[in-house]
């Protein structure tokens, strides 16, 4: 095996371990865990930059990192967001609809944010959030 082939296989095996959160054989466990966190944070920083509404998904960072450990990057941050969003279809349908409105895949969506119903409307490049005001007893006509 050539030096390049040997190096390729070695670097790939170690990177595969670190991306998945495993300690490569013979590596320091503390430094390996820190490297894994750095790798995952770089990826989540890229994802939230590409998709700012990711920050509205509860515990998004931890959940994205757990997903990233099992799903090596294929493509750019936008591809990461697309694949991660697909994995949330069942658990977080409200967030997925929010993402789809931001993404342009749909124009309107009724979702619940913090227990409140919100109508999302895409207008050009911005997204309006309309909340029905709760009727209150102390409001009197003036």
């Amino acid at each position: 095996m050539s030096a390049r082939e040997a190096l390729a296989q070695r670097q790939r095996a170690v990177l595969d371990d670190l991306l998945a959160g495993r300690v490569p054989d013979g590596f320091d466990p503390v430094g390996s865990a820190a490297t894994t966190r750095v790798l995952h944070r770089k990826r989540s920083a890229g994802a939230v930059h590409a998709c700012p509404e990711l920050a509205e998904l509860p515990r998004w960072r931890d959940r994205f990192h757990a997903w990233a450990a099992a799903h090596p990057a294929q493509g750019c941050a936008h591809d990461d967001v697309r694949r991660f969003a697909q994995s949330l279809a069942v658990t977080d349908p409200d967030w997925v609809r929010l993402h789809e409105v931001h993404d342009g895949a749909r124009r309107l969506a009724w979702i619940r944010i913090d227990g409140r119903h919100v109508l999302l409307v895409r207008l050009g490049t911005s997204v309006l959030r309309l909340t029905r005001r709760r009727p209150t007893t102390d409001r009197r006509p003036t």
Partner: protein
Amino acid sequence: MIHASEEHTQHMRPLQGTGAGWRPPIADLLAERARAGRLGFVEVVAENVDPRAVPAGVTALREAGLPVVTHGVTLGLAGADRVDGARLARLGAVAQALGSPAVSEHVAFVRAASSADPLHGDVLEAGHLMPPPRTREALDVLVDNVREAQAALPVPLALENVAALVGWPEDELDEPAWLTELVVRTGCRLVLDVANLFSSATARGTDPVAELCRFPLEAVAYVHVAGGTWEDGLYLDTHAHPVPDPVLALLTTLVAAYDEARLPLPGVMLERDSDVSPATVGPELDRVEGAVARARGRVRT
């Protein structure tokens, strides 16, 4: 021990004074500091600039006579695969568009395929500058890649030490010896990142000062310094926090080492990549400038 000397390294226009990583949110701050004579050079991340549409702020600095270094982050010269010709060509085009005295990159791998043949896919992208194993065999591959890059680039190449939170069990050379051999065999220049050195030395339990003194100082084109944070007893080079005192102290040590070796001190630049604004970068530039000036015994008043 082999020592690198002037005759080994590629000649380039010297970089001096306090520099900064040019970023759009601090364009005005840097222009102002340049006018005040307090900016020696800037560095532009090659991947963030279109060689056909150089930002006006960068062009203005260049026209004012400031060197603009092209800094690449995705070449992966310490990877197993041959250097990507398209990436090299783009790096060269940016360097030409910016009139750069040098291109800098890293002693790192950023992706890994199961085979060195780029046509066989299955590539893992690290999205990060990963430290390579420091073996003789890996050094041969690195030297090959660096020579290829040097042949293709229009200006000298300077290579930076990365922050390594892990070492490889097969490492045969320590970092100063590894970088010295790289310089001797390729004539490349170095970017000495004192924050990365501090991070790596902390992680491997070595003395950063002792290692710093063994770096081939005469080959250093310029110095990087950046902020970071502590986590689990390790120092993370985040480029998102203030420069901590131990890193600033290492910079001061470096100034003394140049003085002792009677070598001219290369330019020292601050990198900041998150939360970039005049309010975060301005005071940090003042601190770096102040630390270097004090170390040289000439305090700005």
